[in-house]
């Protein structure tokens, strides 16, 4: 790891905000562990991490949105407790959140939106006068070097283009003259030219001594903009490096390090019969079509960051979405499920990405959660058969070692890992032909992960196909027989696990594994970051 012997940038080597041992836990689930970081004046710190790495949690604590953190946050050396976003702003920390639309009040004018924070200020005069608001708004825009006409300032903010709205929100964040500015994926909705305009603004702000935290998945932007890269993984700071950035190292840190692999993954199985094929499937409107074969008897691991297309593949096969172009086939026959029920009837099951939102039925018992997709099998003429339900539930509890007091315990009372086992077991218990698991190990402890992995191997050994879609290299190496790397809707690598090593997989992320014969990239050689790499056309909002 290239380490922080911090090169001072233009003489501002002063920490404006420091985190000392900051941790955040939701219940028993620790999502941020002992984070210590310094944010220096005149420096842009890029915050990197895969889905669920803890970036959002860190930003929430830092911007006052989550006051229940432990450890210390220091501003100019003094320990403060950030209890609310307003308080954080008063102390000099402003945040611009990813969804610009959330920061704009439609129906109010541009000027009113720019001076929106005044509404919450008790000290301000309760009667706002329009001319004063215009003057204030113009002053706010001046910090970005912008000069918008009165016509624009008086129009409904809802009518601004997204990039202008982004600038509006940024100008508003700068009105309180912060010392630290947090930007969460600010370019996710911008075109390249618009992003470039934003970067010029950020560089100017940096030159004025502002400290900026920049969250992004676009390595190209970070290469162009950042002075420092901090990588989070599983709530822990993996690395904290300054220029020049070692992108191989950074990706290693982001996606998981080889040392975590303490467990023998056994032989790599090679499936023979094809279960499903994607033929000329286009995952995104602008992406080129791809082909992919899914075979029985092996666990296929599809690796990709947010917006790489993994969820899209799962949704196509699971009957949630229709392909933009191309066709699907299942066991040789054309396969076009119109809804999840069709897929389930065809033996294709999908364990969705978001357990809380798409998986469990809160307040329901373990048994009721398990039998939901297969109520027909647990009933006779519509009449539910308690005994059949019970049998299936006990099978799932047994085969995945679910820790629960019994089938009637409410699912909410189980730990996250055990809830996940219930959800996975629910789908696998029916003996599917093809099981798709989208990020099945998120928020799941190692023991549960191993149990689910073993169950998948057993499923494959019984002649079914299993597909695990994940953004974590470790997880994929642990469970998969065959590894596919997706980047921006393209298959960058498709090899059996015993034919590739971690470096090759990581290389594929950086676009170095285009030809199937290419040797793994030599370690240490700086890789050219790709601006378009792991970014979706419609970047999905991330939640931790």
């Amino acid at each position: 790891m290239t380490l922080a012997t911090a090169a001072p940038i233009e003489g501002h080597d002063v920490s404006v905000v420091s985190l000392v041992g900051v941790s955040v836990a939701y219940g028993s689930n620790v999502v941020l562990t002992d984070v210590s970081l310094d944010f220096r004046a005149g420096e842009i710190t890029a915050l990197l991490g895969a889905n669920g790495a803890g970036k959002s949690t860190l930003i929430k604590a830092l911007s006052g949105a989550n006051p229940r953190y432990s450890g210390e946050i220091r501003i100019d050396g003094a320990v403060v407790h950030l209890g609310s976003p307003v308080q954080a702003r008063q102390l000099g920390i402003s945040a611009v959140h990813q969804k610009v639309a959330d920061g704009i009040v439609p129906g109010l004018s541009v000027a009113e939106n720019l001076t929106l924070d005044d509404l919450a200020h008790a000290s301000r005069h309760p009667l706002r006068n329009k001319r004063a608001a215009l003057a204030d708004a113009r002053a706010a825009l001046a910090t970005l070097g912008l000069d918008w006409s009165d016509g624009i300032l008086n129009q409904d903010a809802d009518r601004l283009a997204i990039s202008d709205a982004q600038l509006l929100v940024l100008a508003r964040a700068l009105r309180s003259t912060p010392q630290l500015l947090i930007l969460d994926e600010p370019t996710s909705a911008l075109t390249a030219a618009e992003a470039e305009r934003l970067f010029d603004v950020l560089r100017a702000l940096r030159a004025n001594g502002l400290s900026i935290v920049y969250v992004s998945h676009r390595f190209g932007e970070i290469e162009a903009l950042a002075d420092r890269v901090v990588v989070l993984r599983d709530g822990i700071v993996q690395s904290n490096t300054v220029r020049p950035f070692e992108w191989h190292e950074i990706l290693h840190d982001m996606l998981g390090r080889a040392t975590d692999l303490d467990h023998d993954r056994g032989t790599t199985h090679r499936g023979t019969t094809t279960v499903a094929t994607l033929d000329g499937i286009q995952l995104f409107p602008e992406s080129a079509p791809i082909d992919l074969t899914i075979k029985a008897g092996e666990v296929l691991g599809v690796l990709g960051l947010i917006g790489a297309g993994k969820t899209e593949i799962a949704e196509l096969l699971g009957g949630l979405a229709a392909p933009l172009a191309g066709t699907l086939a299942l066991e040789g026959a054309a396969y076009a499920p119109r809804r999840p029920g069709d897929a389930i009837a065809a033996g294709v099951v999908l364990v969705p990405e978001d357990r809380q939102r798409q998986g469990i039925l809160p307040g329901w018992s373990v048994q009721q959660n398990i039998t939901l997709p297969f109520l027909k099998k647990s009933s006779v003429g519509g009449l539910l058969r308690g005994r059949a339900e019970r049998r299936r539930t006990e099978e799932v509890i047994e085969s995945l070692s679910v820790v629960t007091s019994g089938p009637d315990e409410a699912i909410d009372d189980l730990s996250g890992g055990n809830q996940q086992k219930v959800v996975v077991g629910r789908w696998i218990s029916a003996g599917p032909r093809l099981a798709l698991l989208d990020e099945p190990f998120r928020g799941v402890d190692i023991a549960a992960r191993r149990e689910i992995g073993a169950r998948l191997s057993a499923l494959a050994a019984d002649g079914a196909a299993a597909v695990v879609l994940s953004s974590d290299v470790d997880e994929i190496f642990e469970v998969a027989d065959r590894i596919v790397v997706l980047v921006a809707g393209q298959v960058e690598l498709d090899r059996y696990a015993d034919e590739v090593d971690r470096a090759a997989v990581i290389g594929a992320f950086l676009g170095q594994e285009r030809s199937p014969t290419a040797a793994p990239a030599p370690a240490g050689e700086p890789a050219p970051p790709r601006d378009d790499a792991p970014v979706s056309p419609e970047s999905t909002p991330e939640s931790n």
Partner: protein
Amino acid sequence: MTSPTTTAPRPLPTRSTGERVSAFVVKWGFVAVTAALILFFLITEPNFRTVDNIFGMLKYIAPTAIAGLGVMLAMTVGGIDLSVGASAGFAVSIAAWTMVIANQVGGVAVAVVLICGLLIGALNAFLIVVARIPDLLATLTTMFVIVGLKLIIVDGKSISSQMTLSNGTTAPGKFTADFLWLDRGSIGPVPVPVIIFLVITIVLWFLLERTRWGRALFAVGTNSEAARLSGIRVQWYRTAAYMGCGLLASIAGLLLAARIGQGDVSAGNSLLLDAVAVALVGVSVLGIGRPNAWGTALGAVLIAVMVTGFTMLGLPYYAQDFGKGIVLLIALLFSFTFSRRRTVVTAGSTTSAS
């Protein structure tokens, strides 16, 4: 993080005495209040004790209870139906119109009314499922439309047997005896409305708790996305729930029409609040925390007991509304404030996702 080796049952989390007491109150509070009220009136009011009174009470509350069961059905899919009162009122006028103006027999009137109820439910379902209008607003709109349509059809007038029509002639038909039997008839000692009330409660209980369709309805209401991914046709179930609700509201209307014996244009106006209240009380009964048939029936009985008791005590009619309000308030406190678990009533907040 759990240990990977233990598969032994985990002990349930121990609860403090306070928690246990509150759990007990949540579970039995409503039953206890109903029992206490009954006991109070039994002791203080000799008339309350008679069998006639008990059936009278149940008969009185039957339309409200049935409409309440309809609202309960809409609640199972996470919705609500504010048009039940209007649907019942519509049913009263349409039944009268069919028999008195169109000179048809009671059976025809019943069929026409039930079809209208299903159509109103289908309209609600269309607005909510296809047009994606939030349930609260969609059913509110339906309420207006239905009330207006009813007044247009009957010319803004109550329809009674032998009424004089606008062309000076006398209306050809009348409320037939077989129709009036719906209110005045009885099987053994049990009045027909009470039997209908009981049968509907049992059918709904069976459907919701014992069949996979009921399970699917609740799944749609609990987590529609998870239900959809489980292969449940979410929109069909929502449609079915609203149509069922429309049907039940029109049955409530039939009982009202038979009770009044004429097509009173104001009938059904007061039904909506009572029906919604009964369904909400039903959620909190026994600490079940979700819509259910027996709870709704019990909620209706509680209100019947209260109203009857208040009347016997000589309290003015407007005291009843106050009493109902207090009962509903307590029910909601049980459901939302004191309950350990999140109550699954999302009325008004659900829109057609997906």
